[in-house]
Structure formats: structure tokens, C-alpha cells
């Protein structure tokens, strides 16, 4: 990139001022987005059902973690359920059997997902594109069978009746408001962490690898390491979401490690907008809302999900937030 600016200083300057203007506008848009999002989330439990909100927030974090890998690393994982589900099982087991306080249970679940991410990532990053998706799917299926057979997961029943416990020994999480704001805090931490990661030098390299891997290699970056690091971070944050979810719903079950869950998180990112900051959050809220409306028609949920997949891929590839951003950019460029 540096060499290009030397060969054509004038053109590059014009491009860079435009890019700088874009960046400033984008930062402003993100700041406004943050304020609106979190203001809404703080008052939301007074208007909406807290259980619905907590479910949506757990999935939003999960989808953001997934989007970190797909939207910014260009790696489509079709096995992210393994991190969500496995972390959920460990967190539930720690809270129920070992009697760990919620913060430690969640930490244990997250740590397990991170470790699993190191192993799975090490195997999966050996291939790209479609193969990467198939490999992660197969690895997740392996974890699914492990969870089905391992004694501590409770097989088909899962781990039920997990105690929510007392956070830091002072805040009893049995009250739904205390639980809600804890989940919101965890979501906020995860969300800002992802925001920092994608805007750090590391994130820039990741995007460069996504756009043109051979070029990144030729510039001297060990792309494998970057991809593995992104994979592990994504796994850890997905694990954080899963571990929290298990504590909130007092349940860890096979649903969360099933391939259907891996597909659902792909759909959330797709509907909201892959590679956007707020897209996965929007996608998670849309899908969780849709599912709670359609609960009585369980078979139709799959059909509707499938139809949304098809519609998004054929006609709506940028997703809700992606379309919104494109609209804002068009308007800005006109002015």
C-alpha cells in the first residue's frame, strides 16, 4: 500500500482524504449507534419480557463472535455451536455439581470453549473456503456425539435445574432484573472487545487476509497465525455467550451443540449483515423474536428459517444493517 502512494501521490492523496472522511463519518455513525443501542437495552426490560431480552442478548453476543470470524476474517464456520454448547455444559456442570459461583462457572465455560477453539482452529485453518465450512461442521458433529455419550452432560435430558447463584457473593441472580443487567454487562464487554479487535492493527491485518491472502503473505504476515488467533477469539466469545446462556436459562442441552444451532448463527449474521458491527445484534433480535412468535409451529420454524436463508442469499445479501449503511453512505456521498 505504501508503494502505491509513492508512484501516484496525487491520486492516492485524494483517495486517502476520501477514506479519512469516510472513516470519520463511520466513527460518528458507530458512536451514535452505540448510544442508541445501549440506551434501548437499558430501558428495554421495563417494556419487554426480560427472558426474551436475555435470550436475544446471549444470541447477539454469539452472533457477534461468529461475525468476527466470518465478516472480518472471511472464514465461514459451520460449527460454532460446538463452542456455545460445550461452554454451556461446562458452565452448567460447574454451577450445579461443583457449586461454583456464577462468575466462575461462566469463566470455566469460556475457558473450555477457548481451549476447544485452539484445537478445532488448528485443524480447520489448514483449508479455506468451502472446505473450512465442511471441516468445522464435521468437528462440531464430533463434539455433538461426545456430548451425547459423555456421562456428565446428561444425554438427551441435558443438565437441568442449574442454580443461578449469587454474583460475586453479593448480587442474587434469581431476580430477573439483576440477571438481565448482568447479561447486558457481559454482552457489552464482549461487544466492545470485538469492536476493539476489528479496529486494531490486528483487525486491519485480518481484513487484509480476508480480501487477499496471497498478498498478505507476500507482505510478510504469517496469515495462519492471524487466522488461528481470530478463530480462538471467536470461539472464546461464543463460549462466553453459551456459558452465560446456561446460567440464565438454568439449562444446558443438546440443542445448543446441534448443527441446527450452527446454521442459526450463520442466519443471524446473514440477516443482520455480515461484516457489519451492529448487524449480528439486529439479526439475533429478529430471529429470536420470530422464533418466539412461531413456537407452536415448531416444524415451520425450520421452513421459515430456510426461506429466509434463500431470500437473503438471492436478494438481500447485505442484510438489514448492511443495507442501512449502504443507504447512509450513498446519502453522504451525495452531499
Amino acid at each position, binding site marked *: 500500500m505504501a508503494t502505491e502512494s509513492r508512484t501516484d501521490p496525487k491520486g492516492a492523496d485524494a483517495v486517502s482524504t476520501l477514506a479519512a472522511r469516510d472513516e470519520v463519518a463511520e466513527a460518528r455513525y458507530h458512536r451514535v449507534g452505540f448510544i442508541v443501542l445501549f440506551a434501548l437495552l437499558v430501558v428495554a426490560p421495563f417494556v419487554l419480557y426480560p427472558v426474551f431480552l436475555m435470550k436475544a442478548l446471549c444470541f447477539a453476543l454469539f452472533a457477534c463472535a461468529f461475525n468476527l470470524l466470518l465478516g472480518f476474517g472471511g472464514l465461514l464456520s459451520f460449527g460454532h455451536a460446538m463452542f456455545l454448547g460445550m461452554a454451556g455444559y461446562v458452565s452448567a456442570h460447574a454451577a450445579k455439581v461443583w457449586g461454583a459461583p456464577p462468575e466462575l462457572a461462566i469463566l470455566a465455560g469460556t475457558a473450555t470453549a477457548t481451549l476447544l477453539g485452539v484445537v478445532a482452529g488448528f485443524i480447520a485453518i*489448514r483449508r479455506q473456503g468451502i472446505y473450512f465450512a465442511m471441516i468445522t461442521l*464435521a468437528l462440531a458433529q464430533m463434539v455433538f456425539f461426545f456430548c451425547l455419550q459423555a456421562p456428565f452432560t446428561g444425554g438427551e435430558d441435558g443438565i437441568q435445574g442449574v442454580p443461578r447463584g449469587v454474583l460475586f457473593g453479593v448480587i442474587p441472580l434469581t431476580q430477573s432484573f439483576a440477571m438481565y443487567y448482568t447479561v447486558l454487562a457481559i454482552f457489552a464487554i464482549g461487544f466492545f472487545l470485538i469492536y476493539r479487535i476489528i479496529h486494531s492493527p490486528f483487525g486491519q491485518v485480518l481484513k487484509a487476509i480476508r480480501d487477499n491472502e496471497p498478498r498478505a503473505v507476500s507482505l510478510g504476515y504469517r496469515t495462519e497465525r492471524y487466522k488461528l488467533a481470530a478463530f480462538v477469539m471467536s470461539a472464546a466469545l461464543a463460549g462466553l455467550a453459551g456459558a452465560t446462556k446456561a446460567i440464565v436459562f438454568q439449562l444446558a442441552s443438546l440443542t445448543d451443540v446441534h448443527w441446527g444451532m450452527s446454521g442459526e448463527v450463520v442466519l443471524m449474521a*446473514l440477516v443482520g449483515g455480515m461484516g457489519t458491527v451492529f448487524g449480528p445484534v439486529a439479526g439475533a433480535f429478529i430471529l429470536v423474536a420470530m422464533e418466539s412468535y412461531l413456537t407452536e409451529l415448531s416444524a415451520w420454524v425450520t421452513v421459515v428459517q430456510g426461506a429466509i436463508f434463500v431470500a437473503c442469499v438471492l436478494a438481500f445479501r447485505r442484510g438489514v444493517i448492511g443495507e442501512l449503511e449502504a443507504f447512509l453512505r450513498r446519502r453522504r456521498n451525495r452531499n
Partner: protein
Amino acid sequence: MGISVPALMGQLLIGLINGSFYALLSLGLAVIFGLLNIINFTHGAQYMVGAFVAWFLLNKLGLGYWWALLLVPVVLAVFGVVIERLMLKHLYKLDHLYGLLLTFGLALILEGVFTHQFGSAGLPYSMPEKLMGGYNLGFMFLPTYRAWVIVASLVICLGTWFLIERTKLGSYLRAATENAPLVQAFGVNVPRMVTLTYAFGVGLAGLAGVFAAPIYQVSPQMGSSLIIVVFAVVVIGGMGSIMGSIVTGFGLGVIEGLTKYFYPEASNTVIFVIMAIVLMVRPQGLFGQR
């Protein structure tokens, strides 16, 4: 450890049966991927639909197994043409991942509709009379139907291999896989070839569904768990070679059968473990080229 020959042979036979399905399905995936650059996630659902169409033909129209063998691939191929013309053809210029996402969505739709219509419990499909019974080989009992499935799928696999590697039509196909615009410049109707290739792959999946109907219960979920294993098979074999898909499919089926005998706890996961090992040692797959 004492080895019981009939039990071992029984598991080997089941392994060969599973291997036939892995081979048939991974073959279809490889043919489709070669020309369309799309991983057909709907493959498992199309296999399931194939079994259901066979069930439908028998129970609603009174057309038996042999008719099903003939009609189901045709029905599924027409279905494939519709999908390719309506949807897939818009995706060839985009990132390969969109093809995966679209076909995944289609798989969800099919599975959901059939679950809604028929429930999750399986429907029985009665075996054709001519293929009932079996042979006593002395050391084991060989059911005729299972022998038939293994032989028939082997013949179809080798036939497909011959069609693609040894005929003129196949040479067009291979050339288009290498460089489609150039083949089109020579006057070959490549878009039509793409459509027919997809139809052929889907027809193979439907045929596998007919083979499966009398052995397994015909259920909406029969495809989804199978297709994930087939993906692992494809990763292990690499999608570069037709013969590679066939050998890997049958081989992994046998390995799975042996695992079921010697260490049953690992029988569900052994193929995934092998996939991980192969990726460590030879990331491009056993028969793949870089």
C-alpha cells in the same frame, strides 16, 4: 480378545452398506462441485426426498421398488433442474460461500416441510419380494437386499467414473471443470451442461434414497446426519478425483464398521477423527491436488 466371525462379518457388511451411501453421495457432491463450484448442502435432503418419493410411489400409486429405481432419479433430476435454473445460476459469480448458504436454506425448507407433513417418526418401506431372504455363506448370513445394494451402488459408481473419465461427454465435462469459458468458446453449451450436471448429481442422491428406503426408516431427518459424515468423507478424499470419492466412501464405511465391532463407543466419531488426522498430514485430502 476372542473374535466372533459372524458378528465381525455382520459389522463389515453394515460398513459396506454405509460405504455405498457415502460413495454415492460424495460422488454426486464431487461432480456438482467440479462444475458448479458449489457444495450442495441440499444433497442430504434430496436423498431423503428420494426415499419419500419411493414410499409415495409404492403406497399411493402402487408402483413398486423397480419403478422407484427408474422414476425417482428422474423426478429428483427435474427438481434439480428447477433449483439450478431458478436459484443457483444467479450465484456463480459470487463467493462460493453463498452457494453453501442457499443450499443449506433449501435443506432446511425440505426437512421442515416433510417433518410437518410426516412427523419425525420413520415410515416403513417394504422390501421387494425378489430381494427378500438371503444366502447362508457358512460363516455368516448374507441378506439378498444388502448384497444387491452394495453391488448396485458399486456398478453405478464405476459407471459414473467411466462416463466422466472415458467418454467424449465426460471429456467435455472435465474440460469445462478446468476452464468453462474456453469450452464455451468451442461451441459447447456450457450453461446447459451445468444444469444437467446438477440434475445428474441430484438424481444420484435420489437413487441413494431409494436404495436406503427398505433398509432404514424413511424419515425427514435421515439425510441431515448422513450429509455431515459425507462432508467429512469428501474432506478426507479431496474432491479432485471421481475414483478417489468412490474408494474413500467404501473404505471409510468399512473402517466405521470395524470400529463398531472393536470399539463401539467411537463408531460415531471415527470418521471425524480420521478427517482431523488427514488434515494434519495431508491437508489437500488423500486424492486431492493442491
